[in-house]
């Protein structure tokens, strides 16, 4: 297939990009003792992007024979031509970058295919059963496993030619507790770019069940959070969500050009000088980040892109089109989810660099505040960096000690202002997005994380 795509690219006079993708997925989901789904999917095809007269056209096909792919090339070209006369802002060019060549296998000692379906199903059933039986208060229980295996071949007119593999398993647990008509829900998930053993490298199903059940049950008797401005300590889970959702999207070059708040902020202070934020195709500081990506879907080698360096905004995230527009090198952030999707600017692994403060010292310095752990239910963020996230687990900090659990807390504000208020950055680090999928018209598997951070934020809750 790689040879075929290379020869089609070489014999096409206009610029063309060909991407073969074979995806195999599995999903197993058990709820309340019943198997809801056991399924497998295979999705194979070639996506073609053509650039003619300064306009992109995109076509995809499941016909993998040479004439089928050539028909898709012709279709992409004619789509581009159809729009060429009416398009106002022509694509002036595509920025050159580190055009990749070679084969990029998955780094794991324990491939998912070495483990039979029966083993995966048994683990899901056992885990769901242990949630169900953990407490009399449990009203509903769910466990699920999913895996996404991708093989891609990406070839373009500039000489990129890569054979790329990825393997992403995911595991989720949900517990719903109930008492006197009151229901509380808690969810936990983990995911890696790697194999079976890698998936449970940090958290085992047993610890996920224990945490999840405990939190759902404890919330039944927890008082509601009281709204107001607080000194908060954010765990790596919320630091990751803040980095990806509230900051990351505002530095995606297409969103920037659509009028994001960051447009004229390069070189300017946007956060406390303790904050350095990056987006990387590698799994920095800890292994197994879900968004590991050696080469992006434009055939460009990925890199560690420094977005904010000691509080100063340094870079946006680019594809080749936006890099040409801004006169910089592409950062390797062009990604397409399925063969029939065209590449868009997407994140990979977005994180804040660890600092120097031990976490217990950070908490000890808070007289009256909140310790906030993980993303709960509900959340949104705008291109002006205003955000609102549900908090999974919120505990009061009184005189430097973590205390009582409170429920219904939401974290909100302007993400840049929150990071401006950061006065301590932990010396720890965790990839923490779990089985998170980013949505932007199409899906993408990404990760996010960082250390603990102490800052000031608005907490939504009830009024006293």
């Amino acid at each position, binding site marked *: 297939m790689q040879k075929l795509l290379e020869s089609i690219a070489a014999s096409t006079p206009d610029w063309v990009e060909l991407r073969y993708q074979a995806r195999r997925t599995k999903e197993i989901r058990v*709820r*309340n003792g*019943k*198997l809801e*789904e*056991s*399924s*497998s*999917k*295979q*999705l*194979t*095809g070639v996506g073609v*992007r053509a650039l003619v007269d300064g*306009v*992109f*056209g*995109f*076509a*995809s*096909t*499941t016909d993998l024979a040479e004439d089928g792919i050539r028909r898709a090339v012709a*279709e*992409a070209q*004619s*789509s*581009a031509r*159809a*729009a060429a006369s*009416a*398009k*106002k*802002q022509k694509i002036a060019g595509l920025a050159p970058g580190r055009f990749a060549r070679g084969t990029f296998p998955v780094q794991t000692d324990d491939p998912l295919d070495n483990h039979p*379906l*029966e083993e995966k*199903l048994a683990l899901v*059933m056992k885990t769901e059963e242990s949630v169900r039986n953990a407490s009399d208060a449990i*009203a*509903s229980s769910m466990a699920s496993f999913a895996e996404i295996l991708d093989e891609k071949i990406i070839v373009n007119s500039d000489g990129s030619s890569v054979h790329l593999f990825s393997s992403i398993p995911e595991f989720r647990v949900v517990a*719903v507790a109930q008492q006197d008509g009151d*229901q509380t*829900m808690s969810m936990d998930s983990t995911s890696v770019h790697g194999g079976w053993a890698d998936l449970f490298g940090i958290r085992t199903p047993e610890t996920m069940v224990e945490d999840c059940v405990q939190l759902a049950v404890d919330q039944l008797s927890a008082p509601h959070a009281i709204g107001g401005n607080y000194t908060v300590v954010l765990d790596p889970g919320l630091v990751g969500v803040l980095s990806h959702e509230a900051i990351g999207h505002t530095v995606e070059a297409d969103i920037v*050009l*659509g009028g994001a708040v960051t447009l004229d902020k390069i070189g300017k202070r946007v956060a406390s000088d303790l904050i350095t934020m990056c987006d990387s195709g590698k799994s920095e500081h800890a292994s197994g980040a879900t968004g590991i990506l050696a080469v992006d879907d434009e055939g460009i080698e990925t890199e560690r892109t420094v977005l904010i360096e000691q509080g100063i905004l340094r870079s946006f995230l680019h594809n080749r089109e936006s890099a040409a527009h801004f006169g910089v090198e592409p950062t390797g952030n062009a990604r397409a989810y399925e063969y*029939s999707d*065209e590449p868009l600017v997407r994140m990979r692994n977005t994180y804040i660099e660890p600092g120097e403060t031990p976490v217990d010292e950070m908490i000890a310095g808070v007289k009256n505040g909140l310790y906030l752990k993980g993303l709960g*239910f*509900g959340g*949104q963020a705008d291109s002006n960096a205003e955000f*609102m996230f*549900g908090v999974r687990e919120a505990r009061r900090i009184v005189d430097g000690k973590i205390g009582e659990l409170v429920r219904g807390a939401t974290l909100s504000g302007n993400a840049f202002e929150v990071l401006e208020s950061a006065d301590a950055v932990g010396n720890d680090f965790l990839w923490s997005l779990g089985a998170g999928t980013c949505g932007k018209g199409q899906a993408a598997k990404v990760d996010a994380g960082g250390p603990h951070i102490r800052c000031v934020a608005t907490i939504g809750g009830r009024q006293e």
Partner: protein
Amino acid sequence: MTDSHLMKHCQQALDSTRRHSADEVEVFGQTQRTISVEIEKADLQTTKSQQETMIGVRAFTNRQVGFSCSNSIVDLESVCLDAVKLAKASPADPNNVLPQPDPFEPVVGLYDPAAESYSASDAVKRAIEILEIAAAYDKRVIVGNGAISVNVVERCIVNSNGLAAGERGSVFSYYALTTARDGDQVSNMAFDFGASRTVAGIELEPVVRNACERALGSLGAAPGESFSGQIILSPDAVSDILGGLLLFQTNARNVLTGSSRWGDKLGQAIAHSSLTVVDDARLEEGVASSSFDREGVPRARREIIRDGELVSLFHNAYTSQAMGTPNTGHASGGARSIPGIGPTNLMVLPGDVSKDDLIADMKQGLLVTRYSGHADPISGDFSGVAKGAFLIKNGKIERPVSGTLIAGNAFDALRQLSGISSETARVFSSVLPYLRLESISVTAG
């Protein structure tokens, strides 16, 4: 229809799965051709075309079930084998059943043969028209995002009970997301969407003009007033705030898992007696209409809420078997997934008072045309920002307001509903009126 290529592939997959010793089989096939042209910042973006055939196989062995699908017809044999393997590894569930064949009359007007030859350049022409209509309407309006797409689908289903059905459909859909700018003033984003089953039915003008008018209407918005009281939701806002809750609570799956509060409320009042909600899967030319559901069960027009009383849930074959009630034919989804449960053309029936009359007897209130925030379908709690909102004073719309927060509970709001307009509008595949709600917290931003 039963002699199409797709139907033959489905039959082959059925036979092959049986040979792999499945005792019951269902095969759903779907061939889809899509062309779309996107608009960004008042300019054309990438034009896309796609064609794909997907076959999904559910294999049953002793009430165990497995599902496998592929978009590669040459792999069909391995898909069939995979489905059986998955079934054999699964625990049995007595509610894993397939429907019996049941004859139906095809719904009229779902397919326009002219859609087959609709090309990328045809779509580009209509996308340019979207930009031209907006530019001609008012220079202050920009189409930030928009698109036009055509989707031509053939669906086939066969099962081992002898069920075999097929249908073709075409849908043209288009939208415009606009903002207006006047000096330093920037409006909220405004949106409108339209869809048609036929080439001749495409009506860009009203959709684009609506989106422009809404953006211009919110220019000059200033902070509003805080109060607890009446608000009017536009059809779009009804969908955003109440739609999710209505569908979650009436989904029989959620009743079975104990997460719906309406599980034991059939025959009881759950909303104000003025509210009637209908799901009409057989609406002529309806965007979400079809003659049979994802499991081949004939579609019907069904009342869900009648005069405030819950009269039906949404069922597929599994939930209908598990609860021992008739299947309502609401199995949703395509060949890529196991059947879910979902609505078709959902309609809140109009009242007999005009929107203006609803406003006329309000002393203080808020008209909300779009909503951005959280709406919890389980607890019913909602809180978020009213976008494109207008302050109502002494029976009149006084002025546009910005940054206004609204909060309340959807269960309470449905019970205390105090008005349903005679006007309705289409929101995607739903048809909804304006609703007036009571006792909502409104906080000025």
